[in-house]
């Protein structure tokens, strides 16, 4: 039976924990709102770029571009977008499990598998694991500059035939409760479906269509990467919000239980004391 003092201490410490978790929940909620706004802000650019890209692909012979060239997949690169911070439920673990499963299954299929780790958590997780790392990045605040830096290295690698296939693992934001895990093959670029009504506009191209396409294809990868970073950030905050909410709830339950225990112990102590006093008085009467 713990003493009254011990119980009081525990109640206080759980209360402190609840304060922290509920503060973290609120911070995550605020950050989530901002992250969602970022996703929406990035949309017009992405939509416009893909429109331009599609209209270009219809007018050029896209087979010539190195990013469209399909090679026999011997060497693959996996990009894993995790978070910098923990305490966000199973957000990171699910992602790592999925990537690990791929690594395990395909160890024999590919000659070479390497990872690009984005987010401190991913770096930590794979630090002591037997995998080949191509690069690691810390996210901080997801920015287009970072997406651009990551993509530049990957594009260069693909063009120089350092690897033949690129897959990105990331969480897409649905709601605070649900994230959808994505496993998207981004390189080689899939030939796209062209809708007929896109063909109508006759453009003047400057410099030439080919040069424009050459500039646009890497850009579309960068945009994809940027979107993945933003989606992942929003998912992270959502996951953290949910995790902290249930942590606060659990802390509340623990406090309730401890309070009952504390009150019982207090009553028991009073009863014993009373019994002692009565017993003492009886003995004096003698």
């Amino acid at each position, binding site marked *: 039976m713990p003493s009254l003092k011990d119980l009081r201490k525990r109640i206080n410490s759980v209360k402190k924990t609840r304060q922290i978790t509920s503060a973290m929940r609120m911070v995550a909620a605020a950050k989530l709102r901002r992250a969602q706004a*970022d996703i929406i*802000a*990035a949309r*017009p*650019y*992405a939509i*416009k*770029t893909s429109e*331009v890209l599609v209209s*270009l692909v219809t007018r050029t012979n896209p087979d010539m571009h190195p990013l469209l060239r399909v090679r026999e997949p011997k060497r693959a690169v996996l990009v894993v977008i995790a978070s910098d911070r923990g305490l966000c439920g199973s957000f990171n673990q699910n992602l790592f499990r999925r990537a690990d499963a791929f690594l395990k299954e395909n160890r024999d299929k590919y000659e070479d598998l390497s990872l690009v780790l984005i987010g401190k958590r991913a770096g930590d997780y794979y630090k002591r694991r037997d995998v080949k790392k191509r690069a690691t990045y810390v996210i901080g605040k997801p*920015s*287009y500059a970072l*997406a*651009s830096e990551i993509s530049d290295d990957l594009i260069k690698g693909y063009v120089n035939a350092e690897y033949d296939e690129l897959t990105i693992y990331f969480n897409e934001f649905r709601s605070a409760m649900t994230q959808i895990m994505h496993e998207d093959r981004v390189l080689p670029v899939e030939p796209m479906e062209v809708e007929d009504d896109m063909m109508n*506009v*006759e*453009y*003047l*191209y*400057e*410099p030439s269509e080919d*040069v*424009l396409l050459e*500039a*646009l294809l890497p850009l579309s990868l*960068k*945009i994809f990467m*940027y979107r993945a970073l933003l989606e992942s950030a929003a998912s992270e905050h959502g996951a953290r919000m949910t995790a902290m909410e249930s942590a606060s709830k659990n802390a509340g339950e623990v406090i309730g239980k401890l309070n009952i225990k504390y009150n019982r112990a207090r009553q028991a102590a009073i009863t014993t004391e009373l019994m002692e006093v009565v017993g003492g008085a009886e003995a004096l009467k003698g």
Partner: protein
Amino acid sequence: MAEEYMQLDVVTPEKAVLSRKAFEVVAPGSMGEFGVLIGHTPFLTTLKPGQIIVRTEDRDIYIAVGGGFAEVISNRVIILAETADMAEDIKADEVKADIEQASEKLRQLGRDDPEHDKWEKRLHRAEIKLRVLENWEKSK
């Protein structure tokens, strides 16, 4: 009578920078600076880092862009820029500090250093920003 103004949108991956009516847009195409007036033919070009001037009814707007695309289509101009800063948002001291930092780095790094290009680009962009800011102030 055709419309008097065209709709201009400047968007970067991070946000929509500007959306308004304009009667002339001058932008730094990779094949040379070009101006767009109402009734321009559909046109698509890459942009190099430089200065965009937007002439509107009440004032001229100066924007520093860091490369991208411009699309002109039926009295709509869409600028897809990797970065875009409105002149009024550019802070001279910050840009000057940036220029200094970048030139310092460039002095230290060798020409073959993988970082060299990155800093050179940064220096170039900062210089453009400063130039845009100066032009804007002169125009006031």
